[in-house]
Protein backbone atom coordinates (compact mmCIF):
# COMPACT_ATOMS: atom_id res chain seq x y z
CA UNK A 1 0.00 0.00 0.00
CA UNK A 2 2.71 2.42 0.97
CA UNK A 3 4.60 1.51 -2.15
CA UNK A 4 1.65 2.43 -4.27
CA UNK A 5 1.42 5.81 -2.61
CA UNK A 6 5.00 6.49 -3.53
CA UNK A 7 4.57 5.30 -7.09
CA UNK A 8 3.42 8.53 -8.79
CA UNK A 9 6.16 10.52 -7.08
CA UNK A 10 8.75 7.91 -7.99
CA UNK A 11 7.67 7.95 -11.61
CA UNK A 12 7.71 11.72 -11.61
CA UNK A 13 11.26 11.74 -10.26
CA UNK A 14 12.39 9.24 -12.90
CA UNK A 15 10.82 11.25 -15.69
CA UNK A 16 12.41 14.40 -14.34
CA UNK A 17 15.85 12.79 -14.31
CA UNK A 18 15.77 11.39 -17.83
CA UNK A 19 14.35 14.60 -19.32
CA UNK A 20 14.07 14.52 -23.10
CA UNK A 21 14.95 10.84 -23.27
CA UNK A 22 11.64 9.85 -21.76
CA UNK A 23 10.83 6.37 -20.51
CA UNK A 24 8.56 3.71 -21.93
CA UNK A 25 5.99 2.03 -19.73
CA UNK A 26 8.11 -1.12 -19.87
CA UNK A 27 11.15 0.71 -18.59
CA UNK A 28 9.09 2.36 -15.89
CA UNK A 29 7.73 -1.03 -14.86
CA UNK A 30 11.24 -2.42 -14.47
CA UNK A 31 12.51 0.66 -12.69
CA UNK A 32 9.67 0.91 -10.21
CA UNK A 33 9.56 -2.85 -9.68
CA UNK A 34 5.78 -2.69 -9.92
CA UNK A 35 3.15 -4.23 -12.13
CA UNK A 36 2.57 -2.61 -15.48
CA UNK A 37 -1.07 -2.01 -14.59
CA UNK A 38 -0.09 -0.16 -11.43
CA UNK A 39 2.35 1.96 -13.41
CA UNK A 40 -0.29 2.76 -16.02
CA UNK A 41 -2.66 3.81 -13.25
CA UNK A 42 -0.02 5.98 -11.60
CA UNK A 43 0.78 7.64 -14.92
CA UNK A 44 -2.87 8.41 -15.50
CA UNK A 45 -3.11 9.84 -12.04
CA UNK A 46 -0.02 11.99 -12.58
CA UNK A 47 -1.22 13.17 -15.93
CA UNK A 48 -4.60 14.11 -14.55
CA UNK A 49 -2.95 15.93 -11.71
CA UNK A 50 -0.85 18.06 -14.00
CA UNK A 51 -3.93 18.97 -15.95
CA UNK A 52 -5.84 19.88 -12.81
CA UNK A 53 -3.15 22.13 -11.45
CA UNK A 54 -3.58 24.65 -14.19
CA UNK A 55 -1.02 26.96 -12.63
CA UNK A 56 1.57 24.28 -13.37
CA UNK A 57 4.25 25.00 -15.95
CA UNK A 58 4.86 21.40 -16.94
CA UNK A 59 2.81 18.42 -18.02
CA UNK A 60 3.16 14.77 -18.90
CA UNK A 61 3.10 13.72 -22.56
CA UNK A 62 3.82 10.58 -24.50
CA UNK A 63 5.63 10.76 -27.83
CA UNK A 64 6.79 7.71 -29.71
CA UNK A 65 5.82 5.48 -26.80
CA UNK A 66 8.05 7.32 -24.33
CA UNK A 67 6.58 9.28 -21.45
CA UNK A 68 8.22 12.59 -20.72
CA UNK A 69 7.72 15.77 -18.80
CA UNK A 70 7.45 18.79 -21.06
CA UNK A 71 6.59 22.44 -20.59
CA UNK A 72 3.04 23.49 -21.32
CA UNK A 73 2.32 24.91 -24.75
CA UNK A 74 1.04 28.15 -23.23
CA UNK A 75 4.57 29.02 -22.14
CA UNK A 76 6.10 28.33 -25.55
CA UNK A 77 6.30 31.99 -26.43
CA UNK A 78 7.93 32.92 -23.12
CA UNK A 79 10.48 30.16 -23.50
CA UNK A 80 11.22 31.04 -27.10
CA UNK A 81 11.75 34.62 -26.03
CA UNK A 82 14.32 33.54 -23.51
CA UNK A 83 16.04 31.14 -25.89
CA UNK A 84 16.69 34.01 -28.27
CA UNK A 85 17.87 31.62 -30.95
CA UNK A 86 16.15 31.27 -34.27
CA UNK A 87 14.00 28.18 -34.26
CA UNK A 88 15.51 25.38 -36.29
CA UNK A 89 14.65 25.98 -39.91
CA UNK A 90 11.34 24.42 -40.76
CA UNK A 91 11.48 21.69 -43.34
CA UNK A 92 10.99 22.30 -47.02
CA UNK A 93 7.72 21.37 -48.68
CA UNK A 94 9.57 18.69 -50.65
CA UNK A 95 10.97 17.06 -47.50
CA UNK A 96 7.56 17.17 -45.84
CA UNK A 97 5.93 15.51 -48.84
CA UNK A 98 8.51 12.75 -48.93
CA UNK A 99 8.21 12.31 -45.17
CA UNK A 100 4.43 12.06 -45.44
CA UNK A 101 4.68 9.39 -48.13
CA UNK A 102 7.18 7.40 -46.09
CA UNK A 103 5.17 7.77 -42.89
CA UNK A 104 1.96 6.48 -44.43
CA UNK A 105 3.34 3.90 -46.85
CA UNK A 106 6.29 2.47 -45.00
CA UNK A 107 8.22 0.45 -45.84
CA UNK A 108 8.58 2.13 -49.21
CA UNK A 109 11.26 2.37 -51.88
CA UNK A 110 12.56 5.58 -53.39
CA UNK A 111 11.19 4.65 -56.80
CA UNK A 112 7.70 4.46 -55.34
CA UNK A 113 8.17 7.87 -53.75
CA UNK A 114 9.44 9.31 -57.04
CA UNK A 115 6.46 7.85 -58.87
CA UNK A 116 3.97 9.25 -56.42
CA UNK A 117 5.42 12.72 -56.53
CA UNK A 118 6.30 12.74 -60.20
CA UNK A 119 9.77 14.05 -59.39
CA UNK A 120 13.04 12.63 -58.12
CA UNK A 121 13.24 12.59 -54.36
CA UNK A 122 16.90 11.83 -53.80
CA UNK A 123 17.68 15.15 -52.13
CA UNK A 124 14.79 15.13 -49.65
CA UNK A 125 15.46 11.47 -48.78
CA UNK A 126 19.06 12.11 -47.80
CA UNK A 127 18.09 15.24 -45.88
CA UNK A 128 15.55 13.22 -43.92
CA UNK A 129 18.15 10.54 -43.16
CA UNK A 130 20.60 13.19 -41.99
CA UNK A 131 17.92 14.62 -39.73
CA UNK A 132 17.35 11.18 -38.24
CA UNK A 133 13.67 11.17 -39.24
CA UNK A 134 13.78 8.19 -41.59
CA UNK A 135 15.93 5.09 -41.84
CA UNK A 136 16.56 2.01 -43.90
CA UNK A 137 14.11 -0.73 -42.99
CA UNK A 138 15.48 -3.54 -45.10
CA UNK A 139 15.48 -4.31 -48.79
CA UNK A 140 12.64 -5.02 -51.16
CA UNK A 141 12.08 -8.51 -52.50
CA UNK A 142 12.39 -7.44 -56.12
CA UNK A 143 15.39 -8.03 -58.34
CA UNK A 144 16.82 -4.59 -57.60
CA UNK A 145 16.78 -5.20 -53.86
CA UNK A 146 15.90 -1.55 -53.47
CA UNK A 147 16.23 0.08 -50.04
CA UNK A 148 13.01 0.28 -48.08
CA UNK A 149 12.55 3.39 -45.98
CA UNK A 150 10.56 3.86 -42.80
CA UNK A 151 10.26 6.48 -40.08
CA UNK A 152 12.25 6.53 -36.82
CA UNK A 153 11.27 7.06 -33.18
CA UNK A 154 12.73 10.53 -33.48
CA UNK A 155 10.12 11.21 -36.15
CA UNK A 156 7.35 10.29 -33.72
CA UNK A 157 8.86 12.53 -31.06
CA UNK A 158 9.45 15.47 -33.40
CA UNK A 159 5.93 15.29 -34.74
CA UNK A 160 4.29 14.76 -31.38
CA UNK A 161 2.88 11.33 -32.21
CA UNK A 162 2.30 8.62 -29.67
CA UNK A 163 2.84 5.92 -32.30
CA UNK A 164 2.35 5.44 -36.04
CA UNK A 165 -1.29 4.68 -35.31
CA UNK A 166 -1.56 8.26 -34.19
CA UNK A 167 -1.08 9.53 -37.75
CA UNK A 168 -4.24 11.29 -38.87
CA UNK A 169 -6.03 9.23 -41.52
CA UNK A 170 -5.37 10.25 -45.11
CA UNK A 171 -8.29 12.13 -46.56
CA UNK A 172 -10.84 9.78 -48.05
CA UNK A 173 -11.96 10.82 -51.49
CA UNK A 174 -15.66 11.46 -51.57
CA UNK A 175 -17.89 12.54 -54.34
CA UNK A 176 -17.95 16.27 -54.37
CA UNK A 177 -15.22 18.55 -53.20
CA UNK A 178 -13.74 17.52 -49.85
CA UNK A 179 -13.40 20.38 -47.42
CA UNK A 180 -9.78 19.62 -46.69
CA UNK A 181 -8.89 20.27 -50.27
CA UNK A 182 -10.34 23.73 -50.11
CA UNK A 183 -8.47 24.40 -46.95
CA UNK A 184 -5.27 23.14 -48.48
CA UNK A 185 -5.80 25.16 -51.61
CA UNK A 186 -6.54 28.27 -49.61
CA UNK A 187 -3.37 27.79 -47.67
CA UNK A 188 -1.47 27.20 -50.84
CA UNK A 189 -2.85 30.34 -52.37
CA UNK A 190 -2.01 32.32 -49.29
CA UNK A 191 1.52 31.09 -49.53
CA UNK A 192 1.45 32.00 -53.15
CA UNK A 193 0.12 35.46 -52.49
CA UNK A 194 2.88 36.06 -49.99
CA UNK A 195 5.33 34.77 -52.51
CA UNK A 196 4.09 37.13 -55.15
CA UNK A 197 4.04 40.13 -52.86
CA UNK A 198 7.31 39.60 -51.14
CA UNK A 199 9.19 37.95 -53.91
CA UNK A 200 11.03 35.78 -51.42
CA UNK A 201 11.52 32.08 -51.64
CA UNK A 202 9.14 29.50 -50.43
CA UNK A 203 11.19 26.70 -49.18
Amino acid sequence: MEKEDRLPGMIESFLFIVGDEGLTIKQLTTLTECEESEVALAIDWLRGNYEKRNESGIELKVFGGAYRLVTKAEFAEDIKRLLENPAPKSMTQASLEVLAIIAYRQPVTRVEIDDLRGVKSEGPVSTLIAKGLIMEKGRSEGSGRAILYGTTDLFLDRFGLESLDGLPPLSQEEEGEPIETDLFMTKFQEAFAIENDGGGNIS
Partner: protein
Amino acid sequence: MTYQVKLDAFEGPLDLLLHLINRLEIDIYDIPMAELTGQYIEHLQAMRVLQLDELSEYLVLAATLIEIKSKMLLPVHEGEVFEDDYNLEVENDPRDELVARLIEYRKYKEAAISLKGSAEERSGHFTKPPEDLTEFGEIVAVETEESMNIFDLIGAFQKMLDRKRLKAPLTASISKTEVSLSEKMDEIMEILERGGGKCAFHSLFEKWETTELVVTFLSLLELMKRRDVIVEQHGNFDEMTVSFRREDE
Protein backbone atom coordinates in the same frame (compact mmCIF):
# COMPACT_ATOMS: atom_id res chain seq x y z
CA MET B 1 -3.56 36.01 -69.64
CA THR B 2 -0.26 36.83 -68.13
CA TYR B 3 0.23 35.17 -64.84
CA GLN B 4 3.47 35.60 -63.01
CA VAL B 5 4.41 32.39 -61.31
CA LYS B 6 7.42 31.62 -59.32
CA LEU B 7 8.02 28.19 -60.70
CA ASP B 8 10.32 26.86 -58.07
CA ALA B 9 7.34 27.14 -55.76
CA PHE B 10 6.15 23.90 -57.34
CA GLU B 11 7.28 20.55 -56.12
CA GLY B 12 6.98 18.92 -59.50
CA PRO B 13 4.69 18.47 -62.48
CA LEU B 14 1.85 16.99 -60.44
CA ASP B 15 2.02 19.91 -58.05
CA LEU B 16 1.87 22.37 -60.93
CA LEU B 17 -1.06 20.50 -62.41
CA LEU B 18 -2.96 20.57 -59.11
CA HIS B 19 -2.34 24.26 -58.87
CA LEU B 20 -3.73 24.83 -62.33
CA ILE B 21 -6.76 22.68 -61.66
CA ASN B 22 -7.52 24.73 -58.62
CA ARG B 23 -6.91 28.08 -60.24
CA LEU B 24 -9.03 27.26 -63.27
CA GLU B 25 -11.70 25.86 -60.93
CA ILE B 26 -11.70 22.62 -62.81
CA ASP B 27 -13.53 19.54 -61.52
CA ILE B 28 -10.75 17.07 -61.04
CA TYR B 29 -13.08 14.21 -62.08
CA ASP B 30 -13.93 15.88 -65.37
CA ILE B 31 -10.83 17.64 -66.59
CA PRO B 32 -11.12 19.67 -69.80
CA MET B 33 -7.92 18.32 -71.29
CA ALA B 34 -7.48 20.93 -74.01
CA GLU B 35 -7.66 23.82 -71.57
CA LEU B 36 -5.46 22.20 -68.95
CA THR B 37 -2.86 21.06 -71.46
CA GLY B 38 -2.73 24.54 -72.93
CA GLN B 39 -2.21 26.15 -69.54
CA TYR B 40 0.36 23.58 -68.52
CA ILE B 41 2.44 24.12 -71.63
CA GLU B 42 2.17 27.86 -71.24
CA HIS B 43 3.67 27.50 -67.80
CA LEU B 44 6.40 25.24 -69.07
CA GLN B 45 7.47 27.91 -71.49
CA ALA B 46 7.95 30.27 -68.61
CA MET B 47 10.01 27.65 -66.86
CA ARG B 48 13.10 27.85 -68.97
CA VAL B 49 14.93 28.99 -65.89
CA LEU B 50 14.65 25.51 -64.50
CA GLN B 51 17.49 23.09 -64.68
CA LEU B 52 17.32 20.61 -67.49
CA ASP B 53 16.83 17.51 -65.39
CA GLU B 54 13.99 19.14 -63.52
CA LEU B 55 12.45 20.31 -66.77
CA SER B 56 12.53 16.80 -68.17
CA GLU B 57 10.12 15.61 -65.51
CA TYR B 58 7.73 18.38 -66.43
CA LEU B 59 8.09 17.49 -70.10
CA VAL B 60 7.22 13.85 -69.49
CA LEU B 61 3.92 14.93 -68.00
CA ALA B 62 3.34 17.36 -70.85
CA ALA B 63 3.66 14.46 -73.25
CA THR B 64 1.18 12.46 -71.19
CA LEU B 65 -1.28 15.36 -71.23
CA ILE B 66 -1.01 15.70 -74.99
CA GLU B 67 -1.48 11.97 -75.41
CA ILE B 68 -4.63 11.98 -73.30
CA LYS B 69 -5.92 15.00 -75.14
CA SER B 70 -5.42 13.38 -78.54
CA LYS B 71 -6.99 10.12 -77.40
CA MET B 72 -10.06 12.05 -76.36
CA LEU B 73 -10.22 13.80 -79.69
CA LEU B 74 -10.32 10.50 -81.53
CA PRO B 75 -13.86 9.83 -82.66
CA VAL B 76 -15.35 6.66 -81.31
CA HIS B 77 -16.37 4.59 -84.30
CA GLU B 78 -19.43 2.66 -83.30
CA GLY B 79 -18.73 -0.06 -85.78
CA GLU B 80 -15.32 -0.79 -84.39
CA VAL B 81 -16.54 -1.43 -80.92
CA PHE B 82 -17.27 -4.96 -80.02
CA GLU B 83 -20.52 -5.33 -78.17
CA ASP B 84 -19.03 -6.87 -75.08
CA ASP B 85 -16.43 -4.13 -74.97
CA TYR B 86 -19.09 -1.51 -74.50
CA ASN B 87 -18.77 -1.28 -70.76
CA LEU B 88 -15.04 -1.24 -70.95
CA GLU B 89 -15.19 1.63 -73.39
CA VAL B 90 -17.24 3.68 -70.95
CA GLU B 91 -15.01 3.02 -68.01
CA ASN B 92 -11.79 3.41 -69.88
CA ASP B 93 -11.62 7.18 -69.85
CA PRO B 94 -8.10 8.13 -70.98
CA ARG B 95 -7.97 10.58 -68.08
CA ASP B 96 -8.53 7.98 -65.38
CA GLU B 97 -4.93 7.18 -64.68
CA LEU B 98 -3.93 10.80 -64.47
CA VAL B 99 -6.83 11.62 -62.15
CA ALA B 100 -5.90 8.72 -59.89
CA ARG B 101 -2.30 9.91 -59.73
CA LEU B 102 -3.35 13.47 -58.96
CA ILE B 103 -5.70 12.38 -56.22
CA GLU B 104 -3.11 10.10 -54.69
CA TYR B 105 -0.49 12.82 -54.78
CA ARG B 106 -2.89 15.35 -53.31
CA LYS B 107 -3.51 13.05 -50.34
CA TYR B 108 0.15 13.15 -49.37
CA LYS B 109 0.41 16.83 -50.04
CA GLU B 110 -2.37 17.38 -47.55
CA ALA B 111 -0.77 14.95 -45.13
CA ALA B 112 2.47 16.94 -45.41
CA ILE B 113 0.62 20.07 -44.36
CA SER B 114 -0.94 18.35 -41.39
CA LEU B 115 2.44 16.92 -40.41
CA LYS B 116 3.89 20.39 -40.48
CA GLY B 117 1.14 21.45 -38.11
CA SER B 118 1.88 18.66 -35.66
CA ALA B 119 5.58 19.47 -35.74
CA GLU B 120 4.79 23.08 -34.92
CA GLU B 121 2.57 22.04 -32.06
CA ARG B 122 5.19 19.67 -30.73
CA SER B 123 7.84 22.36 -30.88
CA GLY B 124 5.83 24.34 -28.36
CA HIS B 125 6.64 21.78 -25.69
CA PHE B 126 10.16 22.01 -24.35
CA THR B 127 11.94 19.47 -22.26
CA LYS B 128 15.19 19.28 -20.39
CA PRO B 129 18.49 17.45 -20.81
CA PRO B 130 18.88 14.33 -18.68
CA GLU B 131 20.32 14.95 -15.23
CA ASP B 132 23.91 14.11 -14.57
CA LEU B 133 23.64 11.00 -12.47
CA THR B 134 27.27 10.78 -11.43
CA GLU B 135 26.40 12.17 -8.00
CA PHE B 136 24.38 9.04 -7.41
CA GLY B 137 27.32 6.79 -8.05
CA GLU B 138 29.27 5.03 -10.72
CA ILE B 139 27.33 4.48 -13.89
CA VAL B 140 27.27 0.78 -14.54
CA ALA B 141 28.47 -0.10 -17.99
CA VAL B 142 25.45 -1.66 -19.53
CA GLU B 143 25.66 -4.41 -22.10
CA THR B 144 23.01 -3.76 -24.70
CA GLU B 145 22.04 -5.89 -27.60
CA GLU B 146 24.11 -4.84 -30.55
CA SER B 147 21.11 -4.20 -32.71
CA MET B 148 21.92 -0.55 -33.18
CA ASN B 149 22.71 0.74 -36.59
CA ILE B 150 23.98 3.82 -38.29
CA PHE B 151 20.54 5.39 -38.26
CA ASP B 152 20.33 5.11 -34.48
CA LEU B 153 23.62 6.91 -34.45
CA ILE B 154 22.30 9.76 -36.55
CA GLY B 155 19.17 9.96 -34.45
CA ALA B 156 21.20 10.18 -31.28
CA PHE B 157 23.39 12.88 -32.75
CA GLN B 158 20.45 14.95 -33.96
CA LYS B 159 18.81 14.72 -30.60
CA MET B 160 21.94 15.92 -28.93
CA LEU B 161 22.30 18.88 -31.28
CA ASP B 162 18.72 19.80 -30.44
CA ARG B 163 19.45 19.65 -26.80
CA LYS B 164 22.48 21.80 -27.36
CA ARG B 165 20.40 24.29 -29.26
CA LEU B 166 18.07 24.48 -26.34
CA LYS B 167 20.73 24.74 -23.73
CA ALA B 168 23.54 26.83 -25.18
CA PRO B 169 21.58 29.94 -26.08
CA LEU B 170 19.87 29.91 -22.74
CA THR B 171 23.07 30.19 -20.75
CA ALA B 172 24.63 32.45 -23.34
CA SER B 173 21.73 34.87 -23.34
CA ILE B 174 21.79 35.08 -19.59
CA SER B 175 25.49 35.67 -19.34
CA LYS B 176 25.40 38.07 -22.25
CA THR B 177 23.02 40.30 -20.41
CA GLU B 178 25.01 39.99 -17.25
CA VAL B 179 28.69 40.12 -18.16
CA SER B 180 30.25 42.24 -20.81
CA LEU B 181 33.97 42.48 -21.31
CA SER B 182 34.19 45.97 -19.84
CA GLU B 183 32.07 45.05 -16.85
CA LYS B 184 34.26 42.09 -16.22
CA MET B 185 37.38 44.22 -16.47
CA ASP B 186 35.97 46.62 -13.88
CA GLU B 187 35.11 43.64 -11.72
CA ILE B 188 38.65 42.30 -11.90
CA MET B 189 40.07 45.70 -10.99
CA GLU B 190 37.72 45.84 -8.01
CA ILE B 191 38.78 42.39 -6.86
CA LEU B 192 42.40 43.50 -7.05
CA GLU B 193 41.59 46.65 -5.12
CA ARG B 194 39.95 44.66 -2.36
CA GLY B 195 42.84 42.23 -2.28
CA GLY B 196 45.35 44.99 -1.70
CA GLY B 197 46.45 45.13 -5.31
CA LYS B 198 46.71 41.44 -6.05
CA CYS B 199 44.87 38.15 -6.10
CA ALA B 200 45.39 34.54 -7.06
CA PHE B 201 44.93 33.81 -10.73
CA HIS B 202 42.59 30.87 -10.15
CA SER B 203 40.35 32.86 -7.81
CA LEU B 204 39.11 34.80 -10.81
CA PHE B 205 37.83 31.60 -12.37
CA GLU B 206 35.53 30.21 -9.77
CA LYS B 207 32.36 30.65 -11.78
CA TRP B 208 31.34 27.51 -13.58
CA GLU B 209 29.75 28.95 -16.63
CA THR B 210 31.82 28.47 -19.78
CA THR B 211 30.94 31.78 -21.32
CA GLU B 212 31.72 33.64 -18.14
CA LEU B 213 35.08 31.89 -17.87
CA VAL B 214 35.88 33.00 -21.37
CA VAL B 215 34.82 36.57 -20.72
CA THR B 216 36.93 36.64 -17.56
CA PHE B 217 39.92 35.33 -19.40
CA LEU B 218 39.57 37.72 -22.31
CA SER B 219 39.15 40.62 -19.86
CA LEU B 220 42.32 39.62 -18.13
CA LEU B 221 44.19 39.50 -21.41
CA GLU B 222 42.85 42.91 -22.30
CA LEU B 223 43.95 44.33 -18.95
CA MET B 224 47.41 42.88 -19.49
CA LYS B 225 47.56 44.38 -22.94
CA ARG B 226 46.59 47.76 -21.56
CA ARG B 227 49.33 47.31 -19.00
CA ASP B 228 46.87 47.75 -16.15
CA VAL B 229 47.72 44.43 -14.56
CA ILE B 230 50.53 41.94 -14.58
CA VAL B 231 50.41 38.19 -14.19
CA GLU B 232 53.36 36.55 -12.51
CA GLN B 233 54.44 33.06 -11.75
CA HIS B 234 57.60 32.25 -9.88
CA GLY B 235 58.23 28.53 -10.20
CA ASN B 236 56.96 26.19 -12.85
CA PHE B 237 53.97 24.90 -10.92
CA ASP B 238 53.55 27.85 -8.61
CA GLU B 239 50.32 29.66 -8.16
CA MET B 240 50.06 32.56 -10.58
CA THR B 241 49.18 35.94 -9.18
CA VAL B 242 47.48 38.87 -10.79
CA SER B 243 48.47 42.31 -9.57
CA PHE B 244 48.29 45.99 -10.46
CA ARG B 245 51.15 47.04 -12.60
CA ARG B 246 53.42 49.29 -10.56
CA GLU B 247 54.01 52.80 -11.84
CA ASP B 248 57.75 52.45 -12.03
CA GLU B 249 57.69 49.47 -14.38
